[in-house]
């Protein structure tokens, strides 16, 4: 998909320097599912609003909170599915822990929704077609990826937050995601709670930009997300 978009992009950029410059930036800022059809529409001369179709996260702190809300929606949906259809051989301890994690993610999601009020984005449609929920390996591997991604997302967005209260709230959530990540990693391989794939030689965890996070998360989110107004 990304390659396809890039190809379309390249063919467009040859024609009109001014137009393409704008378009490149727009394309860069759109992550989850920019369609070739959408680009074709722009080429046909539609307004940029049409091109920017997708759920707009918004700007400023609201944008960052909606970004978090989008990620929590994804996580909550994932764990809800795990508990609805537990993987083969799940232990009672694992079922209890995953139920806890599901409830934490729902608490994060519902809290952010309540805090955002009328500014909250809509419910996102997820796409878990690549996950085999009956397979322990598939579920744990995805859970690890989601939790590590969540940690890096909050770490990377922290400095973009302007309100000290919101920053503290993000801090309250990210360490819980870190606890989840460590728990799931230890289920996969005991002792990998802070493995060298996430914690570097200086003892620092990862941080990712919203662009990086959404390009990864986008594979699991069917609804188009427009993050072009987020602070950077």
């Amino acid at each position, binding site marked *: 998909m990304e390659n396809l978009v890039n190809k379309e992009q390249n063919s467009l950029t040859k024609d009109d320097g001014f137009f393409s410059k704008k378009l490149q930036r727009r394309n860069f800022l759109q992550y989850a599912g920019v369609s070739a059809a959408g680009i074709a529409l722009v080429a046909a001369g539609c307004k940029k609003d049409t091109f920017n179709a997708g759920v707009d996260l918004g700007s400023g702190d609201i944008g960052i909170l909606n970004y978090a809300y989008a990620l929590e929606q994804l996580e909550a949906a994932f764990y809800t599915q795990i508990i609805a259809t537990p993987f083969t051989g799940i232990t009672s301890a694992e079922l209890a822990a995953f139920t806890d994690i599901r*409830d*934490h993610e729902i608490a994060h999601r519902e809290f952010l929704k309540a805090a955002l009020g009328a500014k909250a984005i809509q419910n996102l449609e997820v796409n878990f077609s690549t996950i085999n929920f009956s397979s322990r390996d598939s579920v744990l591997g995805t859970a690890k990826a989601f939790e590590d991604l969540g940690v890096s997302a909050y770490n990377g967005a*922290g400095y973009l937050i302007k309100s000290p209260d919101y920053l503290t709230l993000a801090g309250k959530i990210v360490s819980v995601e870190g606890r989840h*990540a460590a728990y799931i990693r230890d289920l996969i391989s005991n002792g990998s709670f*802070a493995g060298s794939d996430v914690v570097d030689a200086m003892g620092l965890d990862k941080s990712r930009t919203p662009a990086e996070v959404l390009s990864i998360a986008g594979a699991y989110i069917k609804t188009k997300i427009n993050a072009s107004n987020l602070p950077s």
Partner: protein
Amino acid sequence: MNLFNIIKDIETMDPEITDKLNPRRAALKSFGSFGTKVALSSLPFALGSFFNTAKAQSTSTVNDVLNFALTLEYLESEFYIKGVATSGLIPAGAALTALTKIRDDENAHVAFLKSVLGSAAVAKPNFDFTAGGTFNDVFTNYATFLAVAQTFEDTGVRAYKGQAPNLLGNKVVLTAALNIHSVEARHASHLRQMRKASGQAPNIKAWITGANDTGVPQVAASFAGEDNVTQAGVNITTLNGVGGKISTSAATEAFDEPLTKQAVLSIVGPFIK
């Protein structure tokens, strides 16, 4: 990053800065109406030198935070160095491997913070890991050692969280602090699982349930306030969960709470000679 507050801070500390920066300041003022975003993206080379100046002028707050963090990292680092080096204390195998890994992370945090602070770094205090006799068997009883380790990690998570607002908007330092903060959370999670697996705290979870869930009454202060269920005015237990409202346990587990610097210092005070 609040550019205009930074300028204000600099003016307070260096009244002549307005003159020094005059041409740029005029430019900044005129950009003001377009918002910080425009101002930032419209300042090419001025920006780098400008922020070096700004950083130098507001160093004291940042250094205070970093030195506070360094003190906590000294505490953790020396604790694990001693524990890992004490023969017969930690069972060989997974436990020793995990605690060695945590030791290495804490050592790395010390080295990192010292390198950032340079000559402004505080010296390592002398520690008393018995906390004045409260944990006399800390290096002879594995259960005590793990209980103290868990408390250090959970407290560390709270301490970094409490300092985040002092680093608001600081891309480099806040991000680094957050990157350490989540590592401490990973450690805390693992240590809690170790205490559960070894039977010392059979019901403890990787996340904090209510206030002091450790089974160790002496560490209650480290968990004071963790039973909070209200976030930004929203009572989490009034929100919809699965098959009813979100439980009180889940509401407390889902959010880790910050601690003030003062609260942290009173917790670690007994460990510092």
